[in-house]
């Protein structure tokens, strides 16, 4: 008559539920520390960060934004991207049906913590095909140096 108050499910669904919980314990959000500035999955814009010995490269996947209106700031080792994407305006708003509105719009802001050896004087940003590519140079000390043996 009433669903069971016990929380453990039985049968096939019980096994899947237990598997999901165990995987969550090992790989999920609570398992290991996440960056204090990290965003949940599906945040806009998506970020890819990589590094070479001479630079840190940040790629922000932000289609349909005006590059003049995006604020890219580097302050005490934290790179911040902030801006706004206007929502898709239905042209001639009379009798327009909206079937899907998956594209995120509105204000966005993402922050990435950069390693200590970045040089804030050497930052370049480029916007192409909807990807904002920010390149930050690293100080000389970061380059690996070959030590000669006397």
């Amino acid at each position, binding site marked *: 008559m009433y669903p069971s108050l016990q929380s453990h499910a039985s049968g096939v669904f019980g096994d899947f539920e237990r598997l999901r919980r165990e995987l969550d314990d090992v790989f999920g959000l609570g398992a290991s520390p996440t960056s204090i500035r990290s965003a949940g*999955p599906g*945040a806009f*814009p*998506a*970020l*890819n*960060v*990589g*590094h*070479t*010995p001479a630079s*840190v*490269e940040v*790629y922000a*996947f*932000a*289609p*349909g*934004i005006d590059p003049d209106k995006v604020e890219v700031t580097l302050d005490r080792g934290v790179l911040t991207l902030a801006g706004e994407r206007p929502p*898709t305006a*239905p*042209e*001639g708003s009379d*009798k*327009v*049906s*909206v*079937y*899907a*509105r*998956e*594209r*995120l719009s509105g204000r966005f802001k993402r922050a*990435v913590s950069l390693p200590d050896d970045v040089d804030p004087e050497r930052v370049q940003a480029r*916007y*192409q*095909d*909807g*990807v904002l*590519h920010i390149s930050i140079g690293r100080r000389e000390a970061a380059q690996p140096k070959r030590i000669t043996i006397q």
Partner: protein
Amino acid sequence: MSNQPQNTTPSRSNRAMVPRVDVLEDQTGITLLADLPGVSKDQLELKVDGDTLLIKGTVGALTQEGLEPTYAEVRLPLYRRSFTLSRELDTSRIEANLKNGVLNLRIPKQQHAQPRRIQVQVN
């Protein structure tokens, strides 16, 4: 005699990202906007096969010499999504525009048969 069934199961090699879309319909047709950041015009593939519209885009080479990834939210270099279109849409007059990674597709509806004036010949 029968065609091979299409392989629709995504295997490891052809996994793709699903691009987010906005779909709007007005009286004259459908407007579809798709987010395809990283895709340039020559890497975009648009195909209409019968009543299916396929959108495929390959992300251009973003990496450079010796780049080591630290953190990646975008891990696949391919976007793919398909839609079934209904009969009243005129697929031969689709207009597409790709700017700053946003694909703007306009699919007009079939023009209704225009009433034709028949000239009466008088001999």
